[in-house]
């Protein structure tokens, strides 16, 4: 019995060390996706934390031959949908509003150090508009667009992550982009 306990303990410690490394490696890209889904820092942080914690609970069932980020996104999509069901109205805040945390204010990464000041301002304005447009999409469309266009996942990968089929992914993406197009049409010249 003691031997079995020791084996279990060693396996758990090994899992924990491996998982800590994965948290360190993937938390930034997970947070970025969570932010684009949720639209604000507070919810993005909660969503990221919850996705990692849920992943840790089921880490023993994670198949190492598959990419960890795809597995995490699958969990994150479920957490996001669960949360929306519990709280139908999203809490939407401006992208420009600084968020005060215990460690200070959370800031954006600079998009491109080569951009001039005018480009950065323009980019930030469009960033806000595109994010606002994303938030108007039904959540299934929004998630699909984010995985396709921000993460660059293939239709097959999105179908796996969102537990649906390729035909549905194709339809959601098409309808999502058409809705986005309608919202952003007046800024067409700035999108080019």
């Amino acid at each position, binding site marked *: 019995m003691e031997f079995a306990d020791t084996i279990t303990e060693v396996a758990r410690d090994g899992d924990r060390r491996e998982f800590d490394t994965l948290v360190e490696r993937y938390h930034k890209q997970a947070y*970025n996706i969570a932010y684009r889904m949720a639209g604000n820092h507070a919810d993005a942080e909660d969503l990221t*934390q919850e996705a990692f914690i849920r992943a840790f609970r089921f880490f*023993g*069932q994670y198949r190492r*031959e598959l990419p960890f980020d795809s597995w995490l996104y699958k969990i994150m999509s479920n957490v996001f949908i669960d949360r929306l069901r519990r709280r139908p109205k999203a809490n939407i805040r401006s992208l420009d509003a600084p968020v005060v945390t215990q460690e200070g204010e959370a800031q*954006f990464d600079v998009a491109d150090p080569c951009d001039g000041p005018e480009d950065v301002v323009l980019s930030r304005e469009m960033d806000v508009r595109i994010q606002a447009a994303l938030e108007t999409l039904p959540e299934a469309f929004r998630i699909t667009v984010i995985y396709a266009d921000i993460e660059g996942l293939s239709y097959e990968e999105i179908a796996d992550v969102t537990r649906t089929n390729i035909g549905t992914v194709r339809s959601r993406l098409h309808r999502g982009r058409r809705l986005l197009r309608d919202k952003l049409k007046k800024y067409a010249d700035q999108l080019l």
Partner: protein
Amino acid sequence: MNCRHVVNSSSAYVDGELAGAEMLEIRRHLSNCRECSEEYEFVRVTKRAVARLRTVAPPEHLAASIVARLDEVSIPPFQRALNGLFRFTARKLSPVAAALAVSCVALAILTAGGQDRLLDERLDIVASAPLSVHVESASLQPQIPDTPITYSSSKPLVVADHAGGAFQLADMSIH
């Protein structure tokens, strides 16, 4: 190939998710159809705009917060056993066989334990519900048996009547 088909396929075309022959057909259509070409162009621009959204950096404490919260996570023994079994079978068997093995064990555990409790609860609920049926025709009055009723298998038969008068089948059978 008509315009409707091309418009509906414009996203998949932009993403390179169509088969070669269809890609070529759409490309040919786009070069001759101004309306479809404009639609395609805006889909392409929209995709590019979303792709160019800046990467949002997390608060600096995020990774540490997650790791700290992991210390508080307690994995139930049942889940730990499943995780261990999955890990073991994944090493020894193919992924499909491993998933099947774990599913079978989980099902067996559920059937032996939690499922029984669930079934007992449902039996109590249905057994304590009044037996009545809302019917229009007198000739269809329910037959109430004189002998005692016992519930055993899971076939739907008993009709429980609630305030709305709707029929509701319970997972029961009467012997």
